[in-house]
């Protein structure tokens, strides 16, 4: 097993790329998800159609195909050149945003209508109501489903291998090819994914318990 340590530099770099791409995809996905959810709940007809077409495309096709489209097809059609990291980040953000939209929409709709009317009766404007009533509750309610999205996206980053990004899985394939020891290499890399995701789950769980409010939880509103 010790031979793997010789490659620790590559593994650390690959892990760094994996984590960074996950976080970039999630962060972009939160912004896209919140905006799409707000648009779908409160927006006009045309906006709803646009948002839902976007969501269906990204939820209805394989991530690998999406990556190939963004890296090869779009530059070929538009003539705009971008590198693999840019194409990969964009795809992950759009993909994650499409899933997160669903979670945020559920959370926004779970903020009972009666509270919106109560806010109106106090003379609050719609943006004030969003900011002080809807979002603080929706963002809390969304944490558990959002945790699932984190796990799912984190593990899906291995698909980035198809556009040549040097993330953890890609690194593993190279090491295995050089050492002819796939058994140990893939087991070791699998273990890294496992430890990373398990620790992340613990942290997210802790955050959820920290901001949770009595009577305000997914189980109680959905």
């Amino acid at each position, binding site marked *: 097993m010790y031979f793997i340590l010789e490659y620790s530099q590559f593994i650390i770099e690959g892990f760094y790329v994996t984590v960074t791409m996950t976080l970039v995809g999630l962060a972009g996905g939160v912004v896209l998800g919140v905006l799409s959810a707000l648009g779908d709940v409160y927006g006009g007809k045309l906006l709803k159609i646009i948002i839902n077409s976007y969501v269906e495309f990204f939820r209805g096709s394989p991530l690998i195909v999406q990556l190939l489209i963004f890296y090869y097809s779009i530059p070929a059609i538009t003539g705009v050149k971008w590198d693999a990291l840019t194409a990969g980040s964009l795809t992950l953000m759009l993909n994650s945003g499409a899933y997160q939209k669903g979670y945020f929409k559920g959370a926004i709709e779970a903020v009972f209508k009666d509270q919106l009317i109560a806010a109106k009766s106090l*003379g609050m404007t719609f943006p004030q109501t969003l900011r002080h009533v809807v979002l*603080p509750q929706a963002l809390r309610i969304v944490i558990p489903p959002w945790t699932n999205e984190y796990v799912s996206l984190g593990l899906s980053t291995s698909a980035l291998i198809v556009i040549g990004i040097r993330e953890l899985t890609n690194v593993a394939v190279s090491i295995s090819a050089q050492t002819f020891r796939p058994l140990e290499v893939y087991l070791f890399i699998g273990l890294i994914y496992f430890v990373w995701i398990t620790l992340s789950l613990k942290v997210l769980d802790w955050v959820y318990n920290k901001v949770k409010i009595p009577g305000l939880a997914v189980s109680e509103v959905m």
Partner: protein
Amino acid sequence: MEVLACKGLRKVYGDLEVLKGIDFSINKGETKVIIGPSGSGKSTFLRIMGLLEPPTEGKVFFEGKDVYGENLNLNMIRAKIGFVFQDPSLFRHLTALENVKLGLKVVLKMSDEEATKKAMETLKLVRMDEWADYYPAQLSGGQQQRVGIARALAMDPDIILFDEPTASLDIELTWEVIDVMKDLARRGITMLVVTHEIGFAKEVADEIVLMDSGRIVESGPPEQMLKSPKTERAREFLGRLLGGV
């Protein structure tokens, strides 16, 4: 001085005419109680008077101004009309104190310190100051309803509208809420209350208004309404409500 009034108010949902032409007015310091059978349009009437939805036809006046006729800032008027709902409708992510403070800070632009002081005073009036730091889910229905009253009251509104505030409470909790409301009436707060708590009406109302099928059938001071109503419909409804005749 007239606080809130309406003229020729009609409301139609689809093919259903819920309000069929209502003229009404309430003066500063008055308490009026609206009664009437289920489905007669009481809640709809109150929501329109609270500017929570517009009428299909007719006018609403706030302190003499035609609310929808002139180009007024509706939110500024809503801030002056308190509303207490049948379900307390508290903001679930905020404590009792924060529920009362939110409107003060966001709408009336009070500083945090001012808002805390005002909110605590108001919670004391409804006897909820000891529960200031509890979340809605940790309070009983009656306690939540008193926080709802404090939330409306703290804004120093010119009138408070109540839509059956005790309808979902059991008898004991009803009393604690009704007591607080009687207190407010005696302090001279202008109140328009949909309720079937006849004891409340008898003690503090200046007028009882009977609504039926989208119309005001009869109105008058409690003694007269309860003892010798003029219309057959009022006799029938009150007879059933008072459990006699």
